[in-house]
């Protein structure tokens, strides 16, 4: 390296260290969020420059002379060699979803420090490594999927584990994000009107794209975006008019609406609803991420939340359990998200033009997603802590009445008043902000706070709030549509083995049946969450985190196995380190969620506490049915958690068996890569790049 370059990197390291030191040590006085952003940014820069380079050159040995699947199978459709910035955009748009926005908001109950450290360190050493290695493995194997690689490289049992893991995670994931939307739209005519309008807007876009201007996605997205903005503004007038009651519903009704919507989206032609929504949400998502970064830099907000709160002891109101393991389960996306490995072994490897690009696309996109999680954390910390807890705590913990809630929360040392909450609710155009669990409303308040300081002042706060809610709901619903549809295809594929016609994806009886099964599966968990007095997030979000980490375990096991087969066992620690950490987190969390003696943490303890109440006759006769349902749901959740833990153990044992045999020399590692064909873009003497 040149001297001045060394100097630049030293400055970056010093700023990063200084930022970290500030956020870790400052006590008593509020810190400016810029420190958080600076520290994170510097660590990402260092991680990218040095660690990803090490992985690219030493560990994986990316080779630009070797033709990628995109070049070898170029068909102008699936396999298309594409500019690396374009692939980066595609890949980032595909991996970035609601996860990194919601997780940090929930985990902020511990204070901003634990979540921030996990996002940054987990991102650099875990998530980005997983995405990068999975992408690389898929590129070297003609763009194969994770499930296929697990089958080929580990064993067919490993492959089936991956298949079931994907189906399970899809169902839990959809249920939990749908719950977030329901909680955000509860009794909010403005919010519901805006979201409802996105459906006819999507229809219009779909028709426009199909018949008027086929394939002109960008201009259609811009038209759609303008219409959605109009819907956000119009929502205020609807909420203040005689129409309001038609858009005001409680949780259970909204849950049924979303279930009906999910079914419709799965059976309707994809060009009509799913695809245009997806374009709209991608457009809004990329825009908002950039706007939020700009907003934070311009406003430089002060973080009012302390670095650590008393809830590190496990008694938190938003979700119960100690920092270890629950902080690392709650924040999955943003630090390490197993779901990414499906994208990294899906469309992306078929677009990569040169192997060297995998570094920026795989490692780089994940760092950007990690940065989005940091911004969400900042949005949580700009609220007064009392307000943050009042918005995010379920009625079952702090009390359903505002007076009870403010008293409970103030007694924890986070002062908040009824009048302050009422004023804030009025400012953002909502009836109430108490017990709005799920993270979305509090993120929207934080974002509205930041945006309104840049543009419009408190007069536009309500518009910004509903813009933020629309933004979150938009891509949650996109995920729900797309997930239900993929789940339907997977199920049809599976059932087709038993009876051929069920596997036909255009046979309407089969389409209807399998869609209904998938929707019923996530709909059940969603409904259970909506009627749960503890808010549902408390039980469903950890389940989602665990299932996501399960996929990450599979991806890292595949990565490690391939590293060993490449005779790179001495570098296996690159994937084994995050794997080891994930295993300890996932296993501890699964065990605690099932067997912990505290009813707020352990599913079985909660079921026991409820049945004791039933046995003692402490339940009013009218509520007996509901309590019995809660007991059943607790046991079901325990079983689901147990299955996840079992799948993790299974894939690990299967992989470890292979590693052991290679180590003892009982089995010769066979590397199953695609053939080495010299790329037409290769330049002489080039080994790696990007």
């Amino acid at each position, binding site marked *: 390296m040149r001297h001045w370059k060394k100097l630049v990197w030293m400055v970056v390291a010093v700023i990063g260290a200084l930022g970290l030191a500030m956020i870790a040590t400052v006590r008593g006085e509020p810190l400016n969020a810029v420190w958080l952003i600076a520290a994170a940014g510097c660590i990402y820069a260092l991680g990218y420059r040095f660690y990803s380079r090490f992985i690219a050159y030493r560990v994986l040995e990316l080779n630009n002379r070797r033709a990628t699947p995109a070049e070898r199978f170029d068909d102008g*459709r699936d396999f298309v060699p594409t500019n690396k910035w374009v692939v980066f955009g595609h890949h980032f748009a595909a991996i970035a979803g609601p996860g990194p926005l919601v997780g940090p908001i929930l985990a902020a109950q511990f204070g901003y420090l634990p979540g921030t450290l996990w996002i940054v360190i987990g991102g650099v050493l875990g998530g980005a490594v997983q995405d990068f290695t999975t992408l690389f493995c898929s590129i070297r194997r003609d763009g194969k999927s994770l499930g296929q690689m697990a089958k080929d490289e580990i064993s067919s049992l490993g492959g089936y584990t991956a298949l079931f893991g994907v189906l399970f995670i899809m169902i839990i*994931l959809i249920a939990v994000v749908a719950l977030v939307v329901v909680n955000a739209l509860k009794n909010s005519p403005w919010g519901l009107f805006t979201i409802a309008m996105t459906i006819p807007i999507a229809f219009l876009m779909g028709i426009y794209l199909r018949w008027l201007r086929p394939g002109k996605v960008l201009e259609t997205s811009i038209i759609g975006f303008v219409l959605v903005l109009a819907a956000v503004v119009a929502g205020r007038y609807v909420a203040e008019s005689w129409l309001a009651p038609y858009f005001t519903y409680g949780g259970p009704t909204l849950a049924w609406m979303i279930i009906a919507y999910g079914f419709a989206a799965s059976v309707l032609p994809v060009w009509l609803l799913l695809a245009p929504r997806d374009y709209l949400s991608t457009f809004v998502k990329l825009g908002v991420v950039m706007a939020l970064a700009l907003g934070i830099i311009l406003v430089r907000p002060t973080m009012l939340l302390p670095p650590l709160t008393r809830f590190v002891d496990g008694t938190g109101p938003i979700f119960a359990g100690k920092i270890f393991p629950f902080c690392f389960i709650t924040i999955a996306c943003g630090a390490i998200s197993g779901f990414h490995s499906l994208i990294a072994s899906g*469309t992306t490897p078929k677009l990569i033009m040169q192997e060297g690009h995998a570094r920026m696309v795989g490692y780089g996109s994940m760092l950007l997603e990690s940065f989005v999680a940091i911004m969400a954390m900042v949005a949580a910390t700009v609220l007064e802590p009392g307000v943050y807890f009042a918005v995010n705590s379920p009625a079952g913990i702090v009390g359903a009445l505002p007076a009870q809630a403010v008293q409970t929360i103030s007694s924890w040392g986070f002062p908040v008043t009824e009048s302050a909450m009422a004023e804030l609710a009025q400012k953002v155009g909502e009836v109430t902000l108490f017990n709005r669990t799920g993270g979305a409303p509090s993120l929207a308040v934080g974002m509205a706070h930041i945006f309104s300081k840049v543009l419009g002042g408190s007069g536009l706060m309500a518009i910004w709030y509903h813009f933020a809610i629309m933004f979150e709901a938009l891509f949650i619903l996109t995920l729900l549509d797309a997930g239900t549809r993929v789940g339907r295809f997977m199920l049809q594929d599976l059932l087709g083995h038993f009876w051929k016609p069920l596997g036909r994806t255009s046979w309407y009886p089969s389409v209807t049946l399998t869609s209904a099964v998938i929707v019923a599966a996530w709909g059940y968990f969603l409904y259970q969450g909506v009627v749960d007095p503890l808010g549902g997030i408390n039980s469903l979000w950890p389940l989602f985190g665990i299932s996501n980490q399960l996929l990450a375990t599979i991806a890292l096991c595949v990565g490690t196995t391939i590293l060993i087969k490449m005779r790179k066992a001495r570098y296996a620690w690159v994937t084994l380190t995050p794997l080891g950490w994930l295993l300890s987190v996932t296993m501890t969390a699964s065990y605690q969620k099932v067997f912990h003696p505290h009813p707020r943490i352990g599913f079985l303890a909660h079921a026991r506490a409820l049945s004791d109440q039933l046995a003692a006759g402490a339940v009013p006769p009218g509520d007996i049915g509901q309590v019995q349902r809660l007991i059943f749901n607790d046991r079901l959740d325990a079983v689901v958690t147990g299955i996840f833990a079992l799948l993790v153990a299974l894939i690990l044992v299967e992989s470890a068996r292979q590693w052991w045999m290679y180590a003892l020399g009982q089995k010769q590692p066979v590397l199953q890569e695609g053939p080495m064909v010299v790329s037409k873009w290769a330049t002489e003497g080039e080994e790696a790049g990007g």
Partner: protein
Amino acid sequence: MAKARRVLWRIWEMVREVFGDKAYDRYAEHIRTHGGEPLTREEFYVSQLQRKYTRPSRCC
């Protein structure tokens, strides 16, 4: 000035490509050079969507 315009144009082209506006042109080009029976713009658009949404395309 001219250089700035060129850079902006490049960025705009890339944004269009990320959104998939140029997918058909690429496909048509591929058919032209490699041969085969081309789909119309509309057929291509719909069939690409069918393929795209049968596998995980969106993440959490």
